């Protein structure tokens, strides 16, 4: 790998991410997030396709109000920023490329099937846990919340337990 494509030192990256998280708390009173933007998208689409269904649903209706579009959410703007920031970093390091990254031992198709199953599970789980690795685990740990530590241990603990069964997809 040539030098221009090198990643940051992970401890440097960690400190930078921690300082960003601290600044976000200092300015907004909340941490970072990711899955919330996907939830806003689902609420918006369901509200557009089946407005009666959305307004009568106990879950969607929590996130719908008459004076505000459900996409007008902090996390939606933050996620648009993530896409732009990642693109910028990828462009500066020569990593922009349309590709499916997978182990040479599996096909592109099985990688995409596993990515879809993983996304499906992560979306489902993030609703039970009221947030994902960013919003529940990382931001939760920064405030030393019990929920942050529980979700971090449950996510990583489970992935370690099942790593053996999915090893052929990775190593």
């Amino acid at each position, binding site marked *: 790998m040539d030098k221009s494509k090198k*990643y940051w030192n*992970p401890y440097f990256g960690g400190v930078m*991410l*921690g300082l*960003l*998280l601290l600044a976000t*708390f*200092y300015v*907004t*009173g*909340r941490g*970072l997030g*990711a899955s919330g933007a996907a*939830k806003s998208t689902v*609420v918006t689409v*369901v509200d557009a396709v089946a407005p009666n269904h959305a307004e009568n*649903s106990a879950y*969607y209706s929590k996130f719908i109000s008459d004076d505000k579009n459900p996409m007008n959410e902090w996390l939606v703007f*933050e996620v648009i920023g*993530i*896409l*732009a920031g*990642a693109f910028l970093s990828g462009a500066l390091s020569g*990593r922009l*490329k349309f590709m*499916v*990254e997978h182990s040479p031992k599996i096909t592109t198709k099985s990688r*995409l099937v596993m*990515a*879809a*199953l993983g*996304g*499906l*599970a*992560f*979306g489902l*789980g*993030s*609703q*039970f*846990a*009221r*947030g994902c*690795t*960013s919003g*529940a685990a990382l931001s*939760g740990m920064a*405030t*030393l919340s*019990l*929920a942050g530590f*529980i*979700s971090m241990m*449950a996510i*990583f*603990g*489970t992935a370690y*337990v*099942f790593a053996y069964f999915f090893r052929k997809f*990775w190593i």
Partner: protein
Amino acid sequence: MGPLIPSNIIDPSWNNVIALLVGVAFGFILESSGFSSSRKLAGVFYGYDFVVLKVFFTAAITAALGLYYFQYLGWINMSLVYINPTYVASTIVGGVIMGLGFIMGGYCPGTSYCAAGIGKIDAIVFSVAMLFGILIFSEFYPLLEGFYNSGFLGNVTVYEVLGLPVGWFMIILIVVALGAFFVTSLIQDKVKEVDY
């Protein structure tokens, strides 16, 4: 005194602009640290690359220590800072499902957006599938509502629950992290390198 927007020092109309800027920095840091590669992320579960553990733990401790000092210096009013609520059962079940998603998909939501930003098609598939996972939960919510709201302990912190002073808990956390960095570096030396 912070937090600036909840204290009305910065007008809330700036919220979305700040969100966008925070997101750009978030995406840039994640991508530069290698979080746009599912095979690099999955390394933490097979011992060939511990970047996830190093970045995640370092970031959590940096932010936690920062908040602790900000509070000590009177720069931030922690009663205006959001502490995510603890619903024990629902959080554990959610975490277990997310852990399965992580080992199958190789991403979490934030890292999948990050990887989608540089063109990873598997990350785009992951992000779209996530919407369907959320849709399933939302549609079955009437059946899940009781469980979702069970085991509520309030917006509690882990040191309160353990009955430890916050400073001591912070020290324990740092020692555990340093221990984990050291042990994982030994493991990584022993594990066969994976080319990706």
